[in-house]
């Protein structure tokens, strides 16, 4: 043995170093692996001294408050089984998935955050993001189909919100109370153009709002919801209010808007293109079409639940657990009942 070590000492040293390296590597890779435990046949999540917190404890602790999760699981299945995915839907779902990813990818652990959010909607992990997106697209199609079949009834609550599509012309000014010569000239030119041409032509020729000028000044759909601070609408409330006060085909006077953050001022003229709900609903513009769908659903918060219930009637749904059935029925009654009280 001694002779063997003497003759091969270098190989032995190398072997010891390799074994030490591998041992350290295994230790380093596994030092934060937890040890599984069970207590009274239950799988344990955590323990303090002799007491165990089991998976069952976690489930029991959360189930009294899981009505919305049960509903989401039910809704997902009703939607999935009520409509076949078309190629267009799959494309839309992929676009939605990409949009969610690109909006979140700047944040740390974004996949974990998305997975956590998805779980609340009934999807088991980040890898199901596409499934969630496809369900959302399918549900929107079901909602569209249902609303089209019950148009008068479904759009009645929206009438109170003054729905309309609008166009805008804007120009920035240094001091709205004292325009420069160039600014005054441009303003006069816009006024002249509006007297002799259509709003769309004037907007194309003169508007400085780059996102709308290339589309004949067309801004899109608004209603009274655009006045809310939580609205994603980018127009100043003064412009929105002016647009809501006009009838179809009318154009506002000049409106001055000063951004409170930047101090920059702009002048606006706003024009109402359409106020008829059916015409807006039939719009070929995808953004307008999506906006009015959301608006119809928001105007009556029971509608999305009623639509799911309507499609559920055609499916074979069996509740094996009475408590779950009661929970779902109570949840639906609460969503439908409470909201109908509010709307009365």
């Amino acid at each position: 043995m001694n002779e063997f070590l003497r003759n091969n000492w270098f190989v032995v040293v190398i072997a010891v170093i390799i074994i030490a390296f591998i041992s350290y590597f295994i230790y380093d890779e596994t030092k934060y692996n937890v040890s599984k435990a069970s207590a009274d046949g239950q799988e344990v999540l955590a323990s303090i001294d002799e007491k165990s917190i089991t998976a069952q404890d976690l489930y029991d602790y959360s189930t009294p408050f899981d009505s919305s999760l049960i509903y989401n699981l039910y809704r997902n299945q009703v939607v999935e089984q009520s409509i076949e995915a078309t190629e267009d839907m799959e494309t839309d779902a992929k676009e939605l998935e990409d949009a969610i990813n690109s909006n979140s990818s700047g944040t740390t652990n974004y996949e974990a955050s998305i997975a956590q959010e998805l779980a609340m909607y009934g999807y088991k992990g980040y890898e199901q993001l596409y499934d969630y997106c496809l369900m959302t697209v399918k549900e929107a199609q079901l909602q569209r189909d249902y609303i089209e079949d019950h148009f008068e009834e479904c759009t009645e609550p929206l009438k109170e919100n003054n729905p309309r599509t609008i166009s805008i012309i804007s120009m920035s000014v240094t001091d709205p109370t004292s325009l420069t010569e160039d600014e005054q000239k441009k303003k006069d030119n816009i006024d002249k153009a509006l007297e002799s041409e259509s709003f769309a032509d004037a907007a194309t020729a003169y508007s400085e709002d780059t996102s709308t000028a290339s589309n004949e000044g067309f801004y899109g759909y608004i209603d009274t919801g655009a006045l809310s601070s939580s609205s994603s609408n980018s127009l100043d409330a003064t412009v929105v209010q002016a647009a809501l006060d006009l009838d179809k085909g009318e154009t506002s006077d000049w409106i001055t808007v000063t951004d409170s953050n930047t101090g920059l001022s702009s002048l606006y003229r706003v024009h109402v293109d359409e106020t008829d709900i059916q015409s807006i609903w039939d719009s070929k513009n995808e953004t307008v079409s999506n906006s009015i769908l959301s608006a119809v659903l928001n105007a009556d918060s029971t509608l999305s639940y009623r639509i799911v219930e309507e499609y559920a009637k055609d499916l074979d749904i069996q509740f094996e657990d009475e408590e779950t059935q009661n929970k779902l029925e109570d949840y639906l009654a609460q969503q439908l009942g409470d909201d109908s009280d509010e709307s009365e």
Partner: protein
Amino acid sequence: MKANKVKGLLVIGCTCMLIGGCSNSATINNASDVLFTVGETTVTRGDEYDLVKNANGSTLTIELVRQAIMDEEIGRTEEIQKEAEEQYESNASSVDNYEESLKEAGYKDKDDYIEKVIIPTIQQEKLLDQYFTDAKEEITKTYKPTIAKILECDTREDAKNALSALQDGKDEATVWDTYSRESANFSNEEIVVSTLMEETLPTYVINTLYSQDEAGIVDEVMTDDESEDGPYYVAILVSKDYDENKEKIQENLTLRNSDQIDNDCLVYYMKKHNLEFHDQEIFDSIRSTNPEYIVNHPELAEEEGQ
């Protein structure tokens, strides 16, 4: 053949060790119970559990740990039960259909709400009181609490004159009136000074008060190391006896940052009761959000703090 089989098993074993945690995710016993079926698709209790765990597993586990600690440390005595009943009655008397609204929120009945909400709230208050007794050493080391009077002056000259006047035994109120800067944060009143005041008082002043052994005037004019033009501080250490001032210290620290104090309290008792996690997903989630809760690996919280 046998040697190959052993080698194969070894490789599988090592791979599992390296992948780590692949099977350390717990589930419930009745996971295969069906809740409902839609067409061909069944939704089981296990599906629901997985979602609850993915959505809020780590938060809910910590809540259950907190509850277990409170039951261990404080218990559910008759006195607490009585206090909870009284609190419930008081809430119920001021809200119409109180019990109905609790049922709508998911509680079974009055007793369920008392059990799950009111008693834990009372236990939490009592645990915090107990923490300020049990964790005297940790609290003093972290927050360096003292009772002191602070005079804030505009110029070093004013501060020097104020210090001399105090050392000569001049009336404190007069010294404060004479030398205190107009926008001073402190008056001639005893306050609890702690590290939670680092936004309004230089760390040097907090440390100097904490390191002074005897009550009395601090024998120097103090200022922020990074500030060249004041303010300048003169201070009187009134007391650094923790036991004597425990209530004041507790009230002040909790008022200044109740979230941090609650968290410190929880971590203290997690350590005392040797909290360990046995589910890899829960462990990983807590490791990324609250590494201080992984008390058997304190290096994780230290890494986070760096």
